């Protein structure tokens, strides 16, 4: 593995110039993209408003499938959020030199995915205007939330993770914000100066920043693992057939990191292409992430195999009702598509060294994202379709509302990212500066 990722022909100061010059201008193409994604997000917000105004019955949810696309999307987005912070924290703590152009892109994914994923519990509940009843706040009737409920753990975990990852995104931004402030004037300079919190680049400040980043990296690792464990507990604490599984927490964490890396690869490929970052985001970065993706794919396969083998071998009637539904008919097609997307395709594309390229690694990232979405769908819907008593069996198909909101979240991700790369350098400039004393 190459010790460093910086383009050899450029000096530190010219790297700053180069990266800053690549931040997108408000060109026609940029504004058109903002307009397009903004319109899709606005449509999704309209759909949500329609659902609140005219009743939850406008969704495709029905008894007994009380959880549907919203919970699938919730788990999916919270899962992807592990891209970021977790990967960047691991690479920072292990001092992997090739992390330099990757970390900020990853950290931004985390924050945006959490913002999007964290909305789904609100979209999902029947009376969203009372969502704050889940928060323990002092009130005259001395009412508390139920600390035994996994949904309350969820709220706690996600808010902690969002706070932590915001700080973790912000800390390494500070020197770059000061750099931008130093190069601009007027209102822009005042804004960036204020955001850089009085950064001057003194030795003391560098040491404090390094310490803070290291501390946050360690904290965020623990938080990230706990967050997706808690998301898994939403299912495994219940007694619904096949949800009540002891390995769900690690299974979900592995799936989350898996889909997170896939998302990171895709975002990096897009940035490289659209912002012309070929010199920074080079093949070695994709190959390294591709290797990680391959490892997670195998781990995912191992967990999926264990989960299904034990269910099938145990042969408990209520569990087999779900198992049979999941492996046959419509869900059977979904199941094998998932296996192809999460294992077969990436295994070939990443495993055969002749095939390994930026394009094939990006394709693997895309199939893994599809596969992991399907995995969550297969966990949520078949179980609820087959409750213990056959008289209550049922089915689910989403309505235009769930489909619009799902599409809207992908557009929201693109929109937030577009705005972010316009306002902030997507590659941490200071990481390339070797004159920084603490490094």
């Amino acid at each position, binding site marked *: 593995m190459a010790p460093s990722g910086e383009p050899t022909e450029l000096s530190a100061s010219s790297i700053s110039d180069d990266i800053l010059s690549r931040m997108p201008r408000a060109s026609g193409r940029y504004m058109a993209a903002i307009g397009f994604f903004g319109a899709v997000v606005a449509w999704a917000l309209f759909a949500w408003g329609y659902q609140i105004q005219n009743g*939850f019955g406008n969704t495709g949810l029905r008894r*007994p499938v009380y959880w549907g696309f919203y919970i699938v999307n919730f788990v999916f987005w919270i899962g992807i959020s592990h891209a970021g912070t977790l990967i960047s924290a691991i690479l920072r703590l292990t001092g992997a030199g090739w992390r330099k152009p990757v970390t900020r892109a990853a950290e931004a994914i985390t924050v945006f995915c959490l913002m999007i994923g964290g909305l789904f519990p609100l979209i999902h*509940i029947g*009376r969203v205007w009372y969502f704050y009843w889940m928060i323990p706040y002092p009130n005259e009737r001395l009412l508390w939330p139920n600390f035994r409920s996994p949904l309350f753990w969820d709220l706690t975990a996600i808010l902690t993770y969002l706070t932590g990852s915001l700080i973790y995104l912000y800390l390494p931004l500070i020197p770059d914000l000061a750099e931008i402030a130093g190069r601009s004037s007027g209102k822009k300079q005042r804004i960036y100066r204020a955001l850089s919190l009085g950064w001057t680049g003194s030795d003391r400040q560098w040491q404090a920043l390094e310490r803070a980043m290291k501390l946050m990296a360690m904290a965020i690792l623990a938080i990230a693992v706990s967050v997706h464990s808690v998301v898994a507990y939403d299912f495994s604490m219940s007694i619904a057939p096949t949800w009540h599984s002891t390995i769900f927490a690690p299974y979900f964490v592995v799936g989350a990191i898996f889909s997170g890396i896939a998302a990171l690869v895709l975002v990096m490929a897009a940035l490289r292409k659209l912002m012309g970052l070929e010199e920074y985001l080079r093949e070695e970065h994709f190959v390294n992430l591709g290797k990680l993706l391959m490892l997670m794919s195998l781990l995912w396969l191992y967990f999926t195999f264990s989960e299904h083998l034990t269910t099938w071998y145990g042969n408990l009637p209520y569990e087999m009702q779900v198992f049979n539904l999941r492996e046959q008919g419509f869900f059977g097609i979904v199941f094998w598509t998932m296996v192809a997307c999460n294992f077969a395709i990436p295994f070939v594309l990443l495993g055969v060294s002749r095939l390994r390229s930026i394009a094939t690694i990006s394709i693997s990232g895309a199939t893994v994202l599809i596969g992991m979405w399907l995995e969550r769908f297969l966990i949520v819907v078949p179980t*609820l379709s087959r*409750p213990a008593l056959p008289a209550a069996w049922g*089915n689910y198909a989403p309505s235009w509302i769930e489909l619009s909101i799902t599409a809207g979240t992908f557009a929201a991700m693109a929109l937030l990212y577009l705005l972010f790369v316009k306002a902030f350098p997507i590659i941490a400039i200071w990481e390339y500066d070797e004159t920084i004393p603490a490094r």
Partner: protein
Amino acid sequence: MAEGKRNPEEDGSEHVPQWAMAIDLDRCTGCEACVVACSAENNVPTAGQEQAAMGRAKHWIRIDRYYEGEFPNIKVKYRPVLCQHCDNAPCEPVCPVYATYQNAEGLNVQIYNRCIGTRYCANNCPYTVRFFDWFAPEWDGPLDLQLNPDVSIRPAGVVEKCTFCAHRIKRAKLDADAEDRDLADGDVQPACVQSCPAEAMVFGDMSDSHSKVSKKIESGRSEQLLSELGTKPRVYYLRKAD
């Protein structure tokens, strides 16, 4: 001793009844009178044809049908299924806002005002007897003219279910208090029990060993639905041993 209120215990404390139901499956004809009575009594809204076909109909009590044998020698068995008011209810701990809990008399109560509609309880109920209010309640005329003033109307976005006719329990207690007497066995009759033409259902205090429901439970013919899950239901089903 406390004044003659509600079956005082020996130490003078007030007797807390433990409500339970026994349903004799050998008597049930599957006529669904209980379903109709329950919907009328509890202001359960009608869903309409289209919504009902989609799975949005609400029946706090339903009749499950089971077919035994091969065609043409088929025997149909019926089982009325309502909230089992479990002592160890899976729906209770998962609610993030404490909208459902077991009260001192063994009722699994649902607080509509507190419910925010996560539907976690409904997922975790192995009997699938919890219903979500997809829309604000509506009734096809003239059903809208017969609403029961003792039962609250549920707003859109909350979960509702069988209450064991908690309002009738309350009424029976008030009547007994007014007449300065103890609650007697049979004073409380949920709508389903009252309307059953085959008298297949019995409701009462299972902590009173002389009550009809206790005798049914102790008859040796009783079983609980999905008892292997350890939910400890308060509804007992009676049938001849196979």
